[in-house]
């Protein structure tokens, strides 16, 4: 049985997708690829000197294509292209149907048959679910939610918070 009671945001582990300078302040995004506010936050974070980790938090009723997009990103990740797929998904949220996912996979030079098998695999589903459940346990209720300095910031994050984090201080 899955344990979904309260627990802190888990620290980074080998499964996490992380980018940015290792000595920069770590922020963890709970987000989904169909969420327009997540795309905005992602673009804002890209302009900042921060170390970023991305965790999936797809909710079907709000964003019916978020789960399949999350699985597509993990399948791309299995071929070493998570962040590339992450960027392509956020770049065009109006095109998240299967043919659009295949087109992105081709653009990234992925093995298409493997991509398609992987994104439907139990392993990838479990990987996305693992992120989602870690968010549930931490009390994430909406996307995007940014974990930074030990605090969850649901929704829009003030520029001042990002600037403070960039300077290495707690917001």
């Amino acid at each position, binding site marked *: 049985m899955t344990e*979904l009671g*309260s627990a802190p945001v888990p620290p980074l582990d080998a499964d996490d997708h992380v980018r940015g300078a290792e000595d920069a302040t770590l922020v963890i995004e709970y987000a989904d690829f169909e969420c327009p506010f997540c795309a905005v936050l992602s673009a804002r974070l890209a302009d900042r000197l921060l170390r970023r980790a991305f965790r999936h938090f797809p909710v079907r009723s709000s964003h019916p294509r978020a789960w399949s997009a999350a699985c597509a990103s993990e399948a791309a990740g299995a071929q070493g292209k998570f962040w590339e797929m992450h960027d392509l998904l956020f770049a065009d949220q109006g095109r998240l149907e299967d043919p659009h996912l295949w087109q992105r996979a081709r653009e990234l030079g992925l093995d298409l048959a493997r991509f398609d098998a992987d994104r439907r695999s139990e392993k990838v589903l479990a990987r996305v679910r693992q992120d989602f459940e870690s968010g549930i346990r931490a009390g994430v*209720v909406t996307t995007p939610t940014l974990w930074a300095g030990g605090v969850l910031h649901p929704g829009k994050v003030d520029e001042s918070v990002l600037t403070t984090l960039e300077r290495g201080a707690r917001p």
Partner: protein
Amino acid sequence: MHAWGFVRNTLGERVIEPGTPAPEFTLARAEGGEFTREDLAGQTSVLVFYPFAFSPVCTDQMGLYDEVRGELASRGATLYGVSCDATWSQTAFREQLGVSIEQLSDFEPKGETCRAFGVYHPGGFPQRALVIIDPDGVVKWSYQADSPGDLPGANLIFDGLAD
């Protein structure tokens, strides 16, 4: 959540306390029947009192909780959404979201069940509150958000079940 600012700090009575037997109540089911205290017997019920169908926070709440419905079911717990909206509105809300959480209406006499559970807001809608009732019909756990605009995480329900 500035949209809810007008209802902040207007809380009066509080949600029913754990250890209290569930009160007598009658709610309307979408298909036309009634849901009463007798329907709580033999199962763990999670009553999710929410202010308004289609409002932003309630939309997020139903979608979020629907994602963990399976885990709750595996613990023998069933979720019910409760509001003062008419059954037709609740059904449209549920169908638009594509969620499976059964909706129960406290439309007429308006708010009577909410009052019985201590969650009727002076503004004429339910407080955002969660009540877990055990198979013997006794309140096992309850929670009322500080503001109707605050969304309690689904983790709190699992904490409540584990208490």
